Every structure is written in C-alpha cells, then in structure tokens.
C-alpha cells in the first residue's frame, strides 16, 4: 500500500464544487454539531454565574440585581448576542432536522430521497430562522 494519497492539484482543485447533497449534509451537520458543543460549554459557563448568585442577598435576587440576572440581561441587551442567538437557532434547527434525516437513514427509511430530505432540512431551517427573527430581536432596541 502506498503511504501518500496526496495528489496535489488533482485532489484539491476546486473539488468542493463537486460535492453532492450527502456530502454537504455531512459537512453542515459536522459544523452545526461543533457549534452546538461549543455553545453548550459557553452556555454552562454563563449559567454558572447562578452559583455565586444563589448565595447573594435574597433582596438583591428579588430585585433582579444579582450577578446572574445582570449578566444575562447585559448579554441580552447586546445586538450582537441577539444576532448570534438567531444564528444559534439556525444551527440548532438544522442539526435537529438533519439529525432526524440521519436517524431515518439509519433506520433505512426513505434512502431514495435522502437528497430531497437534505434540501428540505435546509429550506425548513431557513424558514424557521426567518420566522423567529422578530421574537429574538424583540426588545433589543
């Protein structure tokens, strides 16, 4: 067996343009999966502010001036964070829909229309994301 399968120009010459639906699905799923784990870690980090908050004065807590609440509110007041949240939703929705598609594929259901279901996931993701923009942006201005 040969050691190297690097064929230089043949291998990477605009190859991505030739990817088929299944390959794109794979790449997108990977990307969204990684984003989600990344988010999971950050998310827990941010939420951890609840730990010191818990031992704060009940009055501060009731007034919503504890460290947890202020952190969240500050973050949520940033437009950037709102936009990132929309992105996160898109990522999550795609990962969910394509994940469902993959689960079906694993069960051997609808293999013949696997490319169609990928396109459907994309379109649905787009639609859901757009539809939820108002909700996410609300109150940011």
């Amino acid at each position: 067996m040969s050691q190297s399968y690097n064929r230089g120009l043949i291998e990477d010459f605009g190859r991505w343009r030739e990817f088929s639906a299944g390959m794109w699905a794979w790449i997108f799923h990977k990307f969204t999966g990684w984003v989600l784990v990344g988010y999971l870690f950050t998310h827990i980090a941010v939420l951890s502010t609840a730990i010191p908050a818990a031992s704060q004065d009940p009055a501060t807590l009731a007034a919503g001036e504890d460290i947890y609440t202020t952190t969240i509110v500050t973050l949520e007041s940033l437009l950037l964070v709102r936009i990132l949240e929309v992105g996160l939703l898109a990522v999550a929705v795609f990962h969910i829909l394509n994940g469902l598609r993959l689960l079906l594929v694993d069960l051997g259901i609808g293999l013949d229309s696997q490319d169609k279901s990928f396109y459907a996931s994309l379109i649905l993701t787009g639609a859901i994301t757009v539809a939820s923009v108002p909700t996410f942006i609300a109150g940011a201005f």
Partner: protein
Amino acid sequence: MAEHYSSFTKGGRLWLWQRLTAAFLVVVLAFHFFLLHFVYHADEVTFALSQSRMEMWTYYSLMILFLFTATFHGVNGVYNALINQGLTGTKRQIVKWTLIAASALLLFQGVRTANAWAGLPTFF
C-alpha cells in the same frame, strides 16, 4: 489486512448511543428552545424565574438528563469526527482523555449550577 481485525468492538454501542441520545435531544432541545426563547423571552430571564422552575424536581431531573445526554452526544460526536480524520495511537488517547476530562468538568459545573437554583448543595 490483518490489522483490521482489532479488538475495537464498542463502535456499535457508541454509535447506537449517539442515535438514542439524538432522538432524546430532539424533543428536549426543542422544548428548551421553545420555553426559553418563545414562552419566556430571553431578556426576561431572571434568577428567580430559573429558580422557580428548577425547584420542580421534574424539571430539575429533565435538565440534568438533558445536560448529560447533550454532553455525551456532543463530546462523543466530536471524538468520532476526530477519529474519522484518522486520529490514532497516543494522540487519540490524549484527545480521548482530554475530552473526557472536559466533559466531567462540564457536567460537574452544570450540576452545580442546577443545584444552585434548586437549593441543593453546590459542593464548594
């Protein structure tokens, strides 16, 4: 190729767990998103509100389960992706244990956070 017949047989189990957790996550993640962005608006989140939810043992256990499955699913997914890129040998062991350590940390921190709300011990 003889080296193909390695002792690696857990693949099937992890694969299956990746699917099972995925199926579980579909429901919970959708619920989570819906609850925290649509029912309660994100900027309305306060410690008190979270606390009130977390004090219900059902919600608490659901969230803990959510945390564990998501962590497993996410970290195992990352691990698999790296293996698929041809990660082998010592490097693989290092990555594996790093990921496990990171997960442990995440779980620990996550549980502490949840406990903070639920009024359970946060250990230190």
